[in-house]
Structures are given as C-alpha cells and as structure tokens.
C-alpha cells in the first residue's frame, strides 16, 4: 500500500487521460491479432507469463482452464471465469490486468453476446479490456455497439481502447470520423487510433472536419492540437 506524499503539489489542471500503468509487452504483428487470433493469443500468453510471479502464473493457468471448461461460478448466473475476470488486476497486478482479461475472454471463446454481457456489467477497466479483446475474438460486426458505447463516454481510457483494430475494421465512416475528432478534443493521442493512416487516406470529409476544427480553434485564440496537422496530411495521401 502506497501512501501519497501530502506535500506533493496539486495537479495543475485536469489531464486528458488517466490509465493504469502498463508493463511492456512485445510489439504485435503488423496485421494485428485479427489476422491470427489464436496465434496472437498464444504470443500474448507467453509474454504475460514471462512477467508474472509464480503464484499469479498458477492462478492464470487455473483461470484459463475454468474459462475453457465453463466452470460454474461463486453465485447464481455467474461463471467462474467471470469472477476471475473481475479479480484479474488484484491477482496479477495493474500492469498485466488488461492482457490477462483478454486471455480469459479468449479462453472462454466469448462471442458477441458474452462480450456484451461482460462489458455491460463491467467497471471501466473491465470494459477497456473487453474493447482490447475484440480483435482476439474473431467477431463479426455484432460488437460494434460496444465500441459506440465507449466512444459516447468522456473517459479517455475507453475512447482510446475503443479505437483498436476492431473499430478500424468495423466502425462506420461517420462514427469513425467523429471518433477521430473526439480524440483531438479529449487529448487521446492519434497513435492510439488503429489503422489511422489507411482509413484517413483520401478521406475528404475527414479533411474538411479537421480544417473546420482548426479554424474554430484559431478563431477562439486557442492552440490547434499537434496531431491535427498530422492526420490532415494523412487524408491527402492516395488510397
């Protein structure tokens, strides 16, 4: 248990995003998990295992076995793996929690319905993990409402997680452009947006929205977000 330093200065202003600290994990294959969900999950498991204490590693192995077997849980209407999913951060630490939760959903072979249930009854960190799991679950467009729900929040952790490879593949043009603009508004770095260069290329409507936004900021005497020019230049590339 760490106690904050009472003498520490107050944060100057609301910062744009708050996240759990995350342990480094290896770089993904360029095509992302969706190209090979099983292989990506195996690679993720290996990298997570490498960083876990033995006790946490054993817990994870048992949790994944429960998920694969559909073991009944501690109370009515709750499977064992759903309880493990909730406890992942306490068992494996903040840095590994997202990845552990992705592995649990993958082992449970969560379909769109299950992913939706876990998301709906999840706290913010669990919802973020469901969003991050989407490309690992080989889902069709049925999980798009989860992405849309996260994009309606003002929680930058959820907005960022929503814009992974699943959104790049399945989110409609209008919603995707609005999401890009929302990232600029809320301070989510453009690097968080999966497939940004591919989707932005040749998108004249996005270019117009960005230019209008830059004009509005300039008229108000406010700085234009640094990422705006970068995204604008991406729209000028040929498809």
């Amino acid at each position: 248990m760490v106690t904050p330093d009472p003498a520490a200065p107050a944060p100057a202003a609301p910062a744009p995003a708050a996240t759990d600290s995350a342990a480094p994990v290896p770089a993904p294959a360029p095509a992302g998990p969706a190209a090979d969900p099983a292989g990506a999950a195996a690679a993720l498991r290996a990298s997570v295992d490498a960083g876990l204490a033995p006790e946490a590693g054993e817990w994870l192995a048992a949790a994944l076995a429960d998920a694969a077997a559909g073991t009944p849980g501690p109370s009515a209407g709750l499977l064992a793996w759903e309880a493990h999913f909730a406890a992942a951060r306490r068992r494996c630490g903040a840095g590994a929690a997202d990845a552990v939760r992705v592995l649990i959903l993958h082992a449970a072979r969560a379909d769109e319905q299950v992913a939706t249930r876990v998301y709906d009854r999840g706290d913010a960190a669990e919802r973020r993990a469901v969003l991050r799991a989407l490309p690992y679950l080989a889902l069709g467009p049925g999980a798009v409402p989860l992405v849309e729900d996260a994009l309606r929040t003002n929680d930058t952790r959820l907005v960022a997680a929503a814009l992974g490879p699943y959104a790049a593949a399945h989110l409609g043009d209008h919603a995707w452009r609005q999401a890009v603009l929302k990232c600029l508004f809320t301070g989510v770095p453009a690097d968080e947006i999966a497939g940004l260069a591919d989707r932005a290329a040749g998108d004249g409507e996005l270019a117009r929205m960005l230019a209008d936004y830059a004009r509005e900021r300039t008229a108000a005497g406010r700085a234009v977000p640094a990422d705006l020019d970068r995204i604008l230049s991406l729209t000028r590339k040929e498809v």
Partner: protein
Amino acid sequence: MRIFDPHIHMTSRTTDDYAAMYDAGVRALVEPSFWLGQPRTSPESFYDYFDSLLGWEPFRAAQYGIAHHCTLALNPKEANDPRLLPVLQELPRYLLKDHVVAVGEIGYDSMTPEEDHALAAQLELAADHGLPAMVHTPHRDKAAGLARTLDVVRESRLAPGRVILDHLNETTVAAALESGCWAAFSIYPDTKMDEDRMVRILREYGTERMLVNSAADWGRSDPLKTRRTADAMLAAGFTDADVDKVLWQNPVEFYGQSGRLELEPEKPEAGGATYEGNSILRGGS
C-alpha cells in the same frame, strides 16, 4: 495534513469541490452508494449508478489527485420498493470489482420488515465476499434504530470489527463503541453533528475506532468538513498524530480490511506513453 473522507457522495459534487478537497488535504475517499434524492423506479437505474461509481467518478477523482473507492448496496430507503429487489440478486457480480471496499450503505431508514430483510441479506453478502459493511443508522428514532441494527449485526457472520456504524451522535456513540463496531460521524453544516461537538466526543471517547466524514451529497453539506474537524481538533489541543489517526489511519485500517484499497490514484497522464506498453492489445497501426 492528509485526509481520507470515508463517506462522501461525489456524484453530486462539482470539479471545484474536488480541487478544494485536494487543497484541503483530501487524498482518498470512499463513496457509498445511496439514495439520489429522486426515488429510482427500476433496477437498471442502480446498475447505471454502480457503473458511475466504478467508472466515471474514479476517473474524475484521479484528474484531481484523489483516490476514489466505493461501497455498493441496495440502500435502506429503496429496499422498501419491491420493484428494486432484483438489485440484491445482481449485487454479487458488482461486489467482485476492484475499488469496491465494502457493502453499503445498508441499515435502517423506517425500520420495516423489508429493511430487516435487505440488511440481513447484505450483511451475508459482505461475509461471502470478504468485505466489510458500512451501516447507516436511521435519522428518525435513532437510538432504537441503532439497537435493532446491533441485533442484526450480532446475528450475522460479520465480526463487529468489520462493521461501520455511521451518522452517530452523543446518544448513540457509547452503544456503538461497546459493540466492537467502528463509530463514524457525519459532520454537517447544521444537522447531524458539527465539528465542535465532534471534538467533545473525541475527548470523551478517544480516537480508537473513530471515523469522521463529510457525507457531503446533493443536500446542504460541505465536502471540507473533514478538514474543519481536523482544524477544530488541533485548536482544542489534539496533536497532529491524533488528527492523522482519525482522519487517515482509521479509515485506511477499516477499509483496508477489504484488501482492495489503493491509496495512489491512477496517474492522470496523457494516454500515449502508458498505452504504448500495451500496444500488442491494440494490434498495432
């Protein structure tokens, strides 16, 4: 001075309050789930509220350097509406979440059979989940309400050291402490308890198992009453160590029994650096 407010309804407060609380020394808090002033009419309203206590509110608190925790329950007042009872079936799923540090607020409002049932059932849920319980004592007929509350606590599987009895005053403090439960006091601008009365109670009963909160909500209340009480304690001759015990160590010890207390708020950093480490989860690009 570091302050832990063990009972405050931040959902009803503004970001100005968060900033003022930080300036006054508040670094951690517990937000118990309760009534919102307007009665709810469906269980789903509760789930949205729980989501808020588990998502948006901790996010907001972190922006201001304050660690946010919550307690979840079907509150006593709304336990009387049969439409809302499904919340009791859904609670186990929520009690598993990080940052849920107790079952609460439970207890009595009007002392009905429905409230008997909800209180007993939720004390059992707390025992099942290894969580302490935060028990509200009724504003009307308080002494009789406390006696009945203590009967139900004694019949439960929960040890008294894992129970807070809240909203106490001069007439109920002795019985509460004698039971072995923790004694909590809500310091309000002009009802319940004020800081000078609180100082007198601390003089008489000591600082052991004593908690002070603002219980600030949507009514007339003051989120800085914890600090005001600390200042009143110092003015009355209590030491810095006494103040730290009542306003920091005691709530940390009580809610620490959940094993889920994290006194370092999530770091309000820009997403980039922190998310990069997790880039495998996003699949690149």
